[in-house]
């Protein structure tokens, strides 16, 4: 059997589960969704083996060839992000299970939406043509907005609305670009044969649209509030994959569709990333709320990932891809921990954090481990990614990028250690007194395991690096 068939499962298992869940009464939605969410990651094992053997898997539906038909392909980058998605999703499940029980009003939409989000993300990662990508991204955005809105606070709703409006603006720009590409080349495939033609307006429209979705500074404004106000598990999965899906799409278009983009543009985009790194870290350092700190940190880290564009080498790709993996795991873990903290303390204001290490040692530890990865201290996954990028910068004598990459860790350290100092070492003078019921321990453990994983992959990065080392996104080299 062709392993590419399994790709269908990645998209259709959550989709079908979502449909089933919608049909069923509310109290059955949760177990069905759980089954669905646990089922599709199982496919990743055979798929990984297949990708490791065959490099990419391609699937074309029903004999209809692109551009009219739908084609999917799975490459190393997609696989890595699928793993992040799977792991973060599974780790978020206990928290979601606990929070969205059958008696909770928001549970009714939550579980189907959760599955639809998975569907959208998986489809976006598999998309082999530009339009298909648009559809998947749109699905993802809508599901994410809806999930954010399950919080039902004014802040969350406003954030969701803003996300929706800006996201749609971004998608429309993207789809305009897609239209122009089709006009120029008559093809929607991502790996354009006539890549040189994809220039200027089309490319710029697509890039800008995707940058909005990926929250690259200064197009990031929707992100902090959206992540910061979303329910914990949602924030976790969103920070782990949703933003990154757009980023991956951006990479693919950059390296694949517009195979030979001008260096000047690359440098400009790298510069934008550089500003994002600094600005995001600075803002994260000044946030008064834990979740906002973590959210802003994402903006900084996404900027970091933009550095792939100017560096544009195999090593840089390995580094950026690996950073994607490590950051996804760490960030999801931190959001999950933050979610538990909000549950117990009733707030995630950093003023309430002192003494946390005694009340919630597992969460504190998770934050610490995740923070270590964000900073990129060895030996963590963050370090591996950083080191590969550094090497890439060295190989190209890109001194500016080299110094920037090195300094980025320092800037992350500022906000991470601020949080750690407050959580663990501050005399608990102003800590809240009334504590809410503690979520089950498995939620804490799940977050911790995820954070541990983010560190451990730094010790054994070979499989991922091996996969990522076979060529730039989409097989270009």
């Amino acid at each position, binding site marked *: 059997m062709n392993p590419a068939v399994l790709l269908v499962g990645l998209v259709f298992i959550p989709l079908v589960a979502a449909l089933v869940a919608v049909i069923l009464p509310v109290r059955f939605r949760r177990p069905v969704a759980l089954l669905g969410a646990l089922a599709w990651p199982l496919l990743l094992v055979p798929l990984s083996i297949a990708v490791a053997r065959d490099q990419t898997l391609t699937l074309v539906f029903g004999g209809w060839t692109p551009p009219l038909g739908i084609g999917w392909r799975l490459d190393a980058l997609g696989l890595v992000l699928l793993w992040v998605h799977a792991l973060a999703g599974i780790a978020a499940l206990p928290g979601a299970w606990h929070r969205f029980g059958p008696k909770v009003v928001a549970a009714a939409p939550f579980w189907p939406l959760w599955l639809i989000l998975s569907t959208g993300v998986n489809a976006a990662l598999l998309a082999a043509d530009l339009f298909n990508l648009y559809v998947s991204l749109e699905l993802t955005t809508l599901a994410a907005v809806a999930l954010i809105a399950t919080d039902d606070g004014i802040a969350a709703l406003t954030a969701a609305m803003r996300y929706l409006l800006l996201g749609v603006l971004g998608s429309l720009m993207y789809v305009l670009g897609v239209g122009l590409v089709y006009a120029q080349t008559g093809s929607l495939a991502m790996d354009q044969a006539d890549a040189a033609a994809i220039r200027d307006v089309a490319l710029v429209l697509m890039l800008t649209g995707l940058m909005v979705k990926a929250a690259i500074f200064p197009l990031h404004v929707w992100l902090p509030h959206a992540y910061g106000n979303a329910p914990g598990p949602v924030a976790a999965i969103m920070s782990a994959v949703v933003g990154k899906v757009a980023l991956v799409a951006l990479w693919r278009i950059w390296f694949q569709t517009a195979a030979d983009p001008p260096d000047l543009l690359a440098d400009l985009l790298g510069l934008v990333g550089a500003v994002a790194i600094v600005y995001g870290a600075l803002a994260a350092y000044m946030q008064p709320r834990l979740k906002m700190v973590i959210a802003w940190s994402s903006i900084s880290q996404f900027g970091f990932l933009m550095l792939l564009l100017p560096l544009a080498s195999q090593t840089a790709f390995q580094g950026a891809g690996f950073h994607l993996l490590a950051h996804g795991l760490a960030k999801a873990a931190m959001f999950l921990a933050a979610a538990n903290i909000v549950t117990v303390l009733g707030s995630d204001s950093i003023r309430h954090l002192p003494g946390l290490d005694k009340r919630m040692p597992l969460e504190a530890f998770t934050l610490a481990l995740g923070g270590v990865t964000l900073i990129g*201290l060895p030996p963590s996954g963050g370090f591996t990614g950083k080191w*590969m990028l550094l090497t890439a910068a060295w190989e190209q004598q890109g001194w500016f990028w080299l110094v920037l990459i090195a300094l980025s860790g320092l800037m992350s350290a500022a906000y991470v250690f601020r949080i750690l100092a407050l959580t663990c070492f501050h005399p608990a003078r102003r800590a809240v007194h009334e504590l809410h019921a503690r979520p089950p321990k498995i939620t804490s453990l799940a977050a911790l395991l995820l954070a541990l994983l983010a560190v451990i992959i730094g010790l054994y990065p070979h499989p991922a690096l091996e996969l990522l080392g076979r060529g730039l996104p989409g097989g270009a080299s």
Partner: protein
Amino acid sequence: MAPWLAQALPPAVVLVSTLAALVIFVAGEAHQRLRIWVNLIAATIKLLLVVWIGLAVLAGNTFMFRFELLPGLELILHADALSILFASLSAVLWLVTTVYAIAYLERSPNRARFFGFFSLCVSATMGIAMAGNLMTLFIFYELLTLTTWPLVVHNGTPEALAAGRSYLRYTLTGGVVLLVAMAWLYGLAGNVEFTPGGFLAPLVAEHRIALSVIFAMLVAGFGIKAALIPLHGWLPKAMVAPAPVSALLHAVAVVKAGAFGIIRTVEDVYGLELVAELGMRIPLIAVAAWTIIIGSLLALREHELKRRLAYSTVSQVSYIVLGIAVGGLLATSGGMVHLVHQGLMKVTLFFCAGIYGLLLGVSRIDQLDGLGRRMPWVSTAFTIAALGMIGVPPVVGFVSKWYLASGALAADVPWVVGVLIASALLNAAYFLPLIRRLWLTEGGALAEMPIEIGALSRLALVASAVATAALTVVLGMLAAHPLSPLSWVLEIASGYAPW
């Protein structure tokens, strides 16, 4: 020796205390007895392992553990004579400091956290000692930053938090500088292990300037932990940490890690000949000399006991760098042996300062009056260590100074002798008044604090201080013994000294 053993022992040495830390973290605050036993047993096992490896190395065995971290980037733990020197220092002092710390923190909160990080910190130090290439050294160096920070801020007071911030600012910046330097170096030279005499000589024709810049960056990066002036700012602030931490910071782990990194850089990455050829040797000597003098002057200005000790560390640790930079058999030995000697003396001083602070609430120098009579053992230990710092024979400090100074002359940099002498005089100027206050001034009306500490703990505190003080004298008196650090170091240095 069985091959698997030769591979397993170096990581085992590192992991022993990691394991201890895990047990301590998991057991939590309540299990005090378990924690004490785990601490002591792990420290003992580690010491035995180090001794085992040391004897095996002496017998000509090689230890090597390789693990490919990234393609072309290996984590290498090995054991050469220099590793053993540093490792045994850490192992011995860890044991003593653990005993001391258990007693010191008998009643204080957050002990599980403290001892957990304490053990992790020693793990990292062992990793630094055993590191077989620059990357491994760097990894453990960063881990050390990470694991010592919780110890620095342990008290949680605003001062402690500020000190922690300052510490991080300095050390993480140092880490960044190192990272850049290493990326550059790896790009130039590829993945190369430490080689006595360095491995960069073939590159010098082509990359002269790059190598110089990298060297400066490496020294700066390590120099931050080694507290080379003006990169020393974090060290005096870190004094707010509990005394065992200060002892650990100053004697075993942090500043020593920096100095050790510089040793490795100079001897095993570049080789002193190359350093001299790049024109970096004299500047390095100058930086060390400058640090020695200015550190002492700054110490003279302090009226807080621990801060004065901190500046003294700034000054003393640079002896190591000085010896390495001067080079030659004598000076190299002097520098390397000071790694051990300074550790022993400084750990004693901090132990004593901690005891004064804990039992009597003494923190300022003018409160030391008459303490000699009240705490004769502790004060004797303090006096011995302080005299050693000045370089009075037969305490170990003398041995270091002897080799450093004669080495400087042998290597034809006679002005270094002037620096050493000035430093000795300054040391005398800031240590002798303390000794005079301890013994010769009548005590003020300092009330004894309500001592909330058991007799056994008190004994442990005093015993650790006395033990290390005794060690400083014994090692000084038996410096020529074949098993002394000095003989060990002479052996190492004979492999390095290019002139």
